């Protein structure tokens, strides 16, 4: 299973990569910005995208919209990763058409499981 992480924080990307690859045995591709993420999504065709919400220049929802507007990436499930944990915000993110929302700080030991759960893959 191939997963694309889009986050502007290299540290977070690294933790998530370690967690998903070591614990979850997934193939991980990283992107440091929304632009890069959109490109990688098209070229790498991941099974799932882990998308940070607050990023400079192009934020999560915009990136998601960009992904949805391209046929090749339109159907890739996207899970938001956000530090804003308040209910209305999570609700708002769900309404943009994401498959799920995970809040920071995430538990690296269960991150992969959570992703699988959202994607209904056992």
């Amino acid at each position, binding site marked *: 299973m191939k997963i694309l992480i889009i986050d502007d*924080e290299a*540290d977070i990307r690294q933790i998530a990569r370690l967690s998903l690859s070591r614990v979850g045995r997934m193939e991980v591709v990283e992107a440091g910005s929304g632009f890069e993420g959109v490109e990688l999504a098209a070229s790498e065709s991941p099974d799932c995208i882990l998308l940070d919400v607050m990023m400079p220049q192009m934020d999560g929802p915009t990136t998601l919209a960009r992904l949805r507007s391209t046929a090749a990436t339109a159907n890739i499930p996207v899970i938001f990763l956000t*530090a804003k944990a308040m209910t209305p915000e999570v609700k708002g993110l769900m309404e943009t058409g994401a498959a799920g929302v995970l809040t920071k*700080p995430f538990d*690296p030991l269960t991150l992969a499981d959570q992703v699988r759960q959202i994607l209904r893959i056992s």
Partner: protein
Amino acid sequence: MAYFDLTNRFWTWGCLAIAVFVAVQAGVVLSEVRDSQAALRQVSDVSSSLMLFDRSVRDLEQAPIENDRDWELLCNAAESRLNDVSTAAAGTGGSDEAIAGLAQSLASVRSAHDGLAARGRASSRDPHALTGAFAALVTAIDIELLRIRDMRLERLSTLESQQRWLFWLVLFACLMAIAAAVVAIRFQGEFSDRWRQHAATRQKDERYRMLVEHASDGIFIVDRNLVIVDANASGFTMLGAPPGELEGHSFRELIVAESSSAMLRCLHELKVGETAVTEGRLRRRDRSELIAEVSLKDLPDGSLQIVLRDVTARHMAEETRREAEETARRHQEALLRLGKLESHSIEGIQAALAETTEVVADAMGSSRIGVWLFDGVESKLRCADEFDRKARRHSSGIELDSQSYPDFFRSLTSSRIIDAHEAVRDSRTSDLAGSYLQPHGIASMLAAAVRSGGRVLGAVFIEHVGPARRWKAEEQSFASSVADLVSLTLEQWERIQAEQALRLSEKYFRSLIESATDIITIIDSGGLIRYTSPSIERIIGRTPDSLVGQSILDLVHDDDADVFRSLSNNAAASSGSSEGFEFRLITKSGAYRVLDATVNNLLDDPAVAGIVVNSRDITDRIAMERELAERVRLANFGLEVSFALTRSDSLATTLQRSADAMAEHLGGAFAGVWMRSPASDGILELQAAAGTHRALFPSQAQTAIGKSAIGAIAQERRPRLVDFASTSTSAEDREWAGRAGIVAFAGYPLIVEDRLVGVMAIFSPTPLSNTTLIAMASVADELALGIDHAHASDALRASEVRFRSIVTNALDGIITLDDQARIESYNDAARAIFGYEARDITGRPLEVLIPDLASDETVSAVANLRERAVGRVTEWEGRRNDGSAFPLEISLYEFEIPDGIYIAMSARDVSERREVDRMKSEFISTVSHELRTPLTSIRGSMSLLAAGVLGDLPPDASDVVHVAARNTERLVTLINDILDLDRLAQGKMELVLTAVQVNTIFRRSVEAVRAFAEQSGIAIKFEESPLRVTGDGDRLVQVVVNLLSNAVKFSPKGGAVRLVAFETDGMVEIQVVDRGRGVPKAFHETIFEPFHQVEGTDAREKGGTGLGLAISRAIIEQHQGSVGVTSEEGVGSTFWFRVPIVVDDQTEFAIVECSSVLVLSPDASARATITEILSISSLHSVSAATVEEAREALDQASISIIVLDASAPNLSAFSILNQLRSDGRLSSIPVVCIDDGVGPRLADERTVFAAAPINDDRLLTAIQRASATQGLGDILLVDDDEALLDVMQRQLQREGIASRTAVSGREALQLARSGTPGVLVLDIGLPEGDGYEVVEALRREPRLNRIPLLIYTGRDLSGFERHRLQLGPTRYLTKSKATNEDFRELVVGLLHNFDQSGTGREDTHHR
């Protein structure tokens, strides 16, 4: 000048108009001339054409005609000429008959020519015949032409002459216009100046008009005949007439007759331009009178300006004051006059009494005054003199006896004065009603007892005939002064009468010698006493024997010795009796007695041979007379004090006047008034002092109550008269008095209703008698009352000032409203908030400041406020005077004062608070993100390291990493808790309220702490509970987990923690019971505060953030519940909380008869599964195994939906559906069909298929979809206000949306069931089941439980109330704050939303 303008303009424009008119005329003439000239030219053209034609005819005649062609050529030439003629003739203008004739002639020529041409072709070519015919015709045409030309020429000459005239006229008019224009331009500058001046004047006039209109004085303009031409508003108001009504009336009519002459005279003498001011009475419309200061001014235009200023109130005040002064003066004069009355004889006393009654009657203005005296014993009163003021007649002799009038006599003897306002009814005088008062028509009576030495001698009756009258204090005091004077008069008279009686009797002569009071002394020429009568012993205390032989000079006062010396010296010369004189005799004790003596020189009489001095002791009489004078003085004193009190001066002035009066009339060297000190209770303070010894006490001197003479009076509350010479005073006092030259002291307490207000006192260098105390007594009450009143009004004023300053300086805006909800007062803070000046905003409605508080026409402004804002704190949008809006928190309250009911508003600008809230929220949100991002990295790193994902670590490193990881977790929890608490504090945490099984809460909570508990070796036990609570399951679990982890943390290893739930007072109480160390009582409250743990070290030792209990409390409070702890140290704790219970459906919502879901399945276990799913969602269901059973079920319950389980093997959904649809009653019910999705499906719009195996989500969604198939998709409007329903319905009609209406909860449910509405608009306050009940009922209806809902109510809803009111997608709209557009938008949005996304989107709102 204006006239000139106008005339000049008129001339300019007039001349120009004439010039234009003439020019137009000239143009017409000119064009006609041109026409005529053209016509003439045409005529000459025709003539020339005719000549050519003639020539061509002649040519024809002469031409050799060889052949047909030549003829043809000739004919053609002739025809072409003819055509020319015709064309030319046509151009001559068709206005004349001549033209017609010409045309006719031409037609003849043409036909002739045509005929000729035809003939020519027929080879009869005789040109002569042709020319002959033509010649005649040409002649005829010529004649016609001539006629035309003549006519035209004639017309032309007329026109030309006209043209000349017109030319001159144009020229003239133009010249005139130019001349006028020049004048106009010359004056133009002046005009514009004048125009500006005119505008300025008008503006000024307008300002003056406003000034006049709003002046408080009434201003009238009248013409020479005093007819009112105009008046301002105050003028009308002043005269009580509606505006405009007085115009046309004569001003003379308004003047009251008495003052008309003065005013009219003033008018006559008025000179142009001058102002005369007079005062006069005017009559209002309602006939009442008005005293006005009238200023008259003759205006230059011949009219008069009359300015009225209402001075009625001032006049009345002056009148009252003058009256009081007048009364006091009259009384004073009367008393002075009465004091001088002599009464040495019977006639004298009668005359004195008669004069007394007369003087008193005139002074008091009373109808009857009588002096009544007791006839010896106090059982019969006899009228000594009665004066009828009206008839000016005296009478006497009537008697009243005490047996007939016991009450009256009792009152008379027991009180100083009887002031019977309504004598017939007054208990003291009602005795007299039948036999005395009514026969004489006496309405009010004032009786003052005449007393002497404790004995009542009689009374002075002051009677008033006519309407009852109240006796003023000064009148009462006057009456008692009169009574005192009468008593003095009587005493004096009695004494004189006794003297005279003696003198008149024979015995007098005998006792003259022996026992008479008079002393007969015989001295010889040397002044030695030869004889003196025994009565001398009584007077000077020495026996006559001891005196004989002594010189008289040794006995008399040194000052009087001369009289006796001269007596002896002149003894020989003057014989006979002498004039009487007074002298003083020294008594044995050294005192002097005054004697009145007459001397008889009987030296020549051998029988006597000496000078007989006949003397009488008049010491007592003199004392009596002195006392009388003193009493008059005292009466004056009383009057003066009363007078001081009636003047409305300040308290200090009143006290000073009283002290002055004491010093002057009571003979005090020092007179003072002490008052209780406002600062300390037991202290008296000197407030006013007067007299020569004013320095005796310093100003504001203080005396403790109980100390010194004054303090003693205050303590004992009894008057005191001290003679410093007597031994009763202390030596210290005596010494002090001696030093100060004081002999006596008199003091009187000032008491009001048992309260001591002060002490009045005088210190005198001469002895004082009881009369001083009496005088003081006569004013004490009055003075005390006066001080008390002044105190009270001072206190009131101070309190008013205090409150006013509080209001003025309050930080909140304070605004009071009148009964029309208009702004009445407005403090500084309000000005700072709203920006209006107080004078600009007072009198305007509140909605100027708060536009949303405007009321519609149906309710009064006040009722509107009462309903929407009074008695609570509400928030609105305020509007400043610059138009800007801001959030405003107001609280309105009603208060009642004697004036009426007012509404006051305290207002606070909360924009800053809102801004702070917003910033705080933003800050927390930011911090949360900023903290979480690095924490994610740290936590992730630590967690990966600790878990060994990145390879095994050395044991020490692993330990350290674990420590770091654990503390990272704590940090994360702490941040989450802080955020939670903040959200709870701000009410931002949205609760998703449902009915939650207590069991579920227990299981989930225990599950969450199981690992931790096992690790600590603690067992958690709980009992199954059937109860359900209303709440947010996740949040309640959070609370229980919190309490459980605390319990586990503080329980000893191997201990147990218990979870208990039970019902109490409509709530469910959940308890977490442990056997831990317990919570000290002092901490029972504080442990629920953030970061308050029993011991500061707990957080580090036991873990936890110190916020758990605070969060728990906040969550429970948001559930409208309560939380607490009971604990005993060392024994254990019980943490408990209560949340609202969910009561069984049937009992709580009795008004709802639930419609049910029919579960149709042949398989019992499938039926059970489906029924359970439905019951979890609180949907009622009935089961049926076959279609027959389904029919039976339908008989017993209302079925709104059928769930058909067709998933069982060997069952054809198709066939069962067919059966259902073919049954009449069942066919219309929506069906949810659960099938395997393999077999054929029946195409039916009321059937929704759901794939087996069924689960909650799929089933409920399908039910919703199925029920939507029956919906009408319209709007159901529910409100008990039918007018509002009408408005809402019309609003929706504009959007093309159909709606139904219901006015009660019951009707709403009926209508909703009869056809599912697209949106439900629901009010809360409804008859027969309110909004809450309707929502609860709908939640239980499978078809209706997800209808989009708009709560449209006048109430402000709390978060909890909002949760109770949720159905499908739910919106809330407050009536007062919503516009019609808001309403339409929301309804359309809800309808639209529902259409688009069905049920999926808002599901999170629901269960």
